[in-house]
């Protein structure tokens, strides 16, 4: 059987350079589009005749074929739709033509995409190109042919021969990846010799033997001779091909994904998408067979649907994590519910990632491939913490102790960072860990810390500098994680807070607990006992209008909130930016003396204060631009003057309660 032509990411198709052909012929293809475009315009203007319509239809037909060959599959589909629309014997009317104009525009957009983006993307685990994947050696030509046809149906290249001698020649000329041999074929020497030769080749060729007896003896004998798989006849051609696929996956190092979902259509889709990227997919449509499937396929990753009848994915995941053998198996949840609570529950159960349905194919592939690659790297590196991809606790303690010793000797500062993610999840830890790693210098140590926390020892960095860096990281994780999780970070500096890792660790943990008490998504520096205590108020009112200020103060204090009132922006900024004061919410007037409210808001944002404090702007009713600017600068809300006091109090309450007020 001949090889199926296949385009590759390198732009080759059966050894031909696709990019060069595209470059040479794209002008012709664009001319063909122009013919269609002119016909559509003529139809809109009611001057299209049947000849023109037919000519345009012919061009669309040509385009559909050409574009598909170049890998412009969407373009081909659009051209096909145009061909169908232009084919009828009735003239296209203006209304129909207007609909066709959308297809023409989309077609032009598709054709202007770079060629490389159109060619089928090679998977990260590509098959060996060129050679037939399977060589079937079988004396019974009908049966062998059916196996070859079934293999072709599954996209496997296959060749056929009836003798071991011919097989040897074919293997020498064009080595396959798997040879399927009927044990009854015994010419030109012993089958054992043939199997031994295949095993001895570099790269070796996998072998599968078809035996005829039900007893164990022949199977054991075949395995002893070096066969990597044994099937007992009679066996349907499809079963042979499936066994070959599994063997190929093993021999190629192709990762296997086990997909568990009660929706068979979705399973097929997942198989197609992941299969196209070089992944072997085993499908399972009921949870009862999960453990058997895990033992059988030993997957590299489990795709787990959460919404199945009878049993939910979260329970299965918990059970999986409780099983020592599968505790480290990457699990990606497929969830129909996008609710943050549900996702938190999945992560808490041990999910590595969650993909919401409907699933984007690209997104799914990226996540699966990424997770498998990371899992492989981590398996190869026992010093790497599986949850975060950073150094394990033991490795971190070693590195940090060494760095602290160096800092002591050189009289350099160092800062220990301890961070906790709430709720704890591997994905969130990994995200924060990655950011910490990226922001750290090469000599810094970043790793896991007892209690499922993250830690970093920043060599040569003061607590102030470390706080600035960590502030940015917390902001970034907050932006990407939304309300999914909160990051609380504590810092302790050497030599101020201690010089050994244990003392610094304890100090950093205390600071981290303060950050948690402040509502999370915060960075706190360890302050020695007896140090100055921070004043925390519910609301800071910044308004120079005495009458309005009096009313708002009266209303706020009457509701039991702690309030401070300042009359100018510069003073408010100075207070909020200082170490000893924090307001959960700021009611900030726009028109202030010295420094206007929008400038204050901008600077609060620049200094990272808005993550601890919500700002409600008091704007002027008619000034829409002012409102938009305030919201863009990070204001939590705005209230336009004149306002209803009840509405203002409601919004203040929302702001205050969101920041951990009682």
């Amino acid at each position, binding site marked *: 059987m001949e090889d199926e032509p296949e385009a590759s990411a390198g732009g080759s198709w059966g050894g031909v350079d696709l990019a060069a052909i595209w470059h040479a012929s794209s002008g012709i293809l*664009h001319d063909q589009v122009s013919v269609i*475009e*002119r016909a*559509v*315009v003529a139809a*809109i*203007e*009611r001057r299209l005749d049947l000849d023109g319509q037919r000519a345009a239809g012919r061009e669309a037909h040509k385009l559909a074929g050409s574009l598909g060959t170049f890998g412009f599959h969407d373009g081909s589909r659009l051209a096909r739709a145009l061909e169908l629309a232009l084919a009828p014997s009735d003239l296209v009317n*203006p*209304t129909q*033509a*207007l609909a066709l*104009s*959308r297809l*023409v*525009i*989309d077609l*032009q957009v598709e054709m*202007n995409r770079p060629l490389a983006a159109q060619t089928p993307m090679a998977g990260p685990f590509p098959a060996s190109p060129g050679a037939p994947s399977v060589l079937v050696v079988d004396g019974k030509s009908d049966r062998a042919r059916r196996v070859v046809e079934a293999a072709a149906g599954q996209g496997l290249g296959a060749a056929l021969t009836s003798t071991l001698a011919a097989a040897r020649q074919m293997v020498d000329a064009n080595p396959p990846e798997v040879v399927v041999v009927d044990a009854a074929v015994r010419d030109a020497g012993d089958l054992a010799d043939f199997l031994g030769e295949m095993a001895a080749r570099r790269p070796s060729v996998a072998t599968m033997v078809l035996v005829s007896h039900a007893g164990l003896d022949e199977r054991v004998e075949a395995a002893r001779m070096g066969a990597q798989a044994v099937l007992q006849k009679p066996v349907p051609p499809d079963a042979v091909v499936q066994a070959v696929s599994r063997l190929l996956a093993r021999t190629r190092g192709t990762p296997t994904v086990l997909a568990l979902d009660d929706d068979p259509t979705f399973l097929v889709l997942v198989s197609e998408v992941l299969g196209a990227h070089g992944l072997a997919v085993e499908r399972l449509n009921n949870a009862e067979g999960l453990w058997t499937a895990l033992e059988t396929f030993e997957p590299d990753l489990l795709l787990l649907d959460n919404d199945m009848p009878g049993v939910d994915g979260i329970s299965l995941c918990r059970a999986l994590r409780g099983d020592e053998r599968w505790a480290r198996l990457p699990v990606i949840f497929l969830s129909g519910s996008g609710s943050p609570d549900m996702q938190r529950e999945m992560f808490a159960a041990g999910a590595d990632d969650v993909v919401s349905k409907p699933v984007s194919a690209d997104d799914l592939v990226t996540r699966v491939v990424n997770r498998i690659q990371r899992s492989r790297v981590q398996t190869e590196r026992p010093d790497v913490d599986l949850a975060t991809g950073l150094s394990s606790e033991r490795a971190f303690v070693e590195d940090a102790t060494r760095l602290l010793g160096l800092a002591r000797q050189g009289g350099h500062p160092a800062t220990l960072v301890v961070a906790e993610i709430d709720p704890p999840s591997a994905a969130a830890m990994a995200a924060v860990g990655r950011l910490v790693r990226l922001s750290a210098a090469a000599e810094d140590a970043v790793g896991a810390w007892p209690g499922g926390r993250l830690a970093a020892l920043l060599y040569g960095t003061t607590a102030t500098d470390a706080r600035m860096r960590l502030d940015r990281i917390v902001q970034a994780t907050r932006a990407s994680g939304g309300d999914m999780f909160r990051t609380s970070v504590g810092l302790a500096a050497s030599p101020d807070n201690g010089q050994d890792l244990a003392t610094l660790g304890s100090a950093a943990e205390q600071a981290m607990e303060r950050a948690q008490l402040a509502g999370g998504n915060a960075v706190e520096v360890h302050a020695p006992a007896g140090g100055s205590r921070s004043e925390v108020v519910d609301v800071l009112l910044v308004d120079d*209008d*005495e*009458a*309005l200020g*009096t*009313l708002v*103060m*009266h*209303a706020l204090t*009457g509701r039991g909130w702690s309030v401070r009132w300042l009359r100018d922006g510069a003073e408010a900024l100075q207070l909020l930016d200082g170490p000893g004061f924090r307001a959960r919410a700021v009611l900030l007037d726009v028109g202030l003396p010295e420094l206007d409210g929008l400038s204050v808001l901008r600077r609060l944002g620049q200094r990272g204060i808005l993550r601890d404090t919500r700002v409600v702007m008091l704007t002027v009713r008619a000034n829409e631009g002012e409102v938009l600017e305030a919201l863009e600068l990070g204001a939590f809300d705005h209230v336009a*003057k*004149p*306002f*209803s*006091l*009840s*509405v203002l109090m409601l919004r203040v309450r929302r702001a205050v309660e969101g920041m951990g007020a009682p």
Partner: protein
Amino acid sequence: MIPVDFLLTVLVVEMATVGVCLTAVALHALGLWHRTQADAPLLVRGRAALSKAIAGDPDANEGVAELRRLPSRVQSEVVDQLAVSVTGEEGRRMTGVAEALGLAASARRRCRSRWWWRRLQGAYRLNVHGGGDEALPALFRDPHPAVRAQVIEWAGDAQRADLAADLVAALHDSSALCRHTAADSILRGGASMVDALAEELSSYGGQQQADLLVVLARRPDPRYRRAALAAVADDLPALRVAVADLLGGVGGAEASEALLGLLTDPDAAVRAAAADGIRRLRLEDAVPSLAPLLRDESFEVRRAAGAALAGVGPGGILLLRHYRSDADPFAADMANHSLDIASLRHPGDED
């Protein structure tokens, strides 16, 4: 020759007059300063009392009583200061406090004054702290434009359907201040005035109807459509322009049909307004009718047609591409220009 003694006398008198004036000014300033100093603690008390009176506290009456103990100028000042910043329930309580203190009654008396500035002061107070529902409508016909403008502004906040006729009439006031304030108040009038404004729209014709349509088109509502459609064939081009403008905002099958008809209007401004309305409604079916307008003799029409073709959908884009090579250089230029603006030019389209 003027005797020296006489000149000296005049000089002394002048100096004395200037001295007296300066002394009077200084004494007045001193008096003001002294009053400001004396009033400062009273204002603080007044603000606290007013806050208590309007914030919904159980002891609101105590706040009112405390305010009553203050001089009326302090009462008036604290109410004026705070009234501009509150609305809703607190605004209504503020009106009650102003009534209880007699400030509203005083303002109403001022509205009847023979002096326009006192009427203005009264209208302003009633506008700010309420209580003018009965007194203010009469001032729509006040001889002084500043007073009328104050009442027109109040009407925008009052959102009363019965004021719609007065507001519409104010669009044709002799004073520009009143006309602009009226347009603003009509736009702020809110949903409660729409039906009344639609009725007013039907009752007018000609330039007055056009003026009202220009304002209403900025906040279009389907209830204005009937009156606009009735004026689509009016003789006055300015009215047809305003009709096209409004129909482009409200949409609907009849509006779309009317706009298509206006594309062939004899007046260029109407054709341009119709094309613009079609662009806003994204009527792709209008593409065949828009295309010929790229060859229109009026630049504004060509510009509006180009923008509409670029904005209604892919059919318009294809037409514009086709017209880039039109025999009419003005049409070709506008097609290119419109495609440039739409940033949708085909990479091979450069000339």
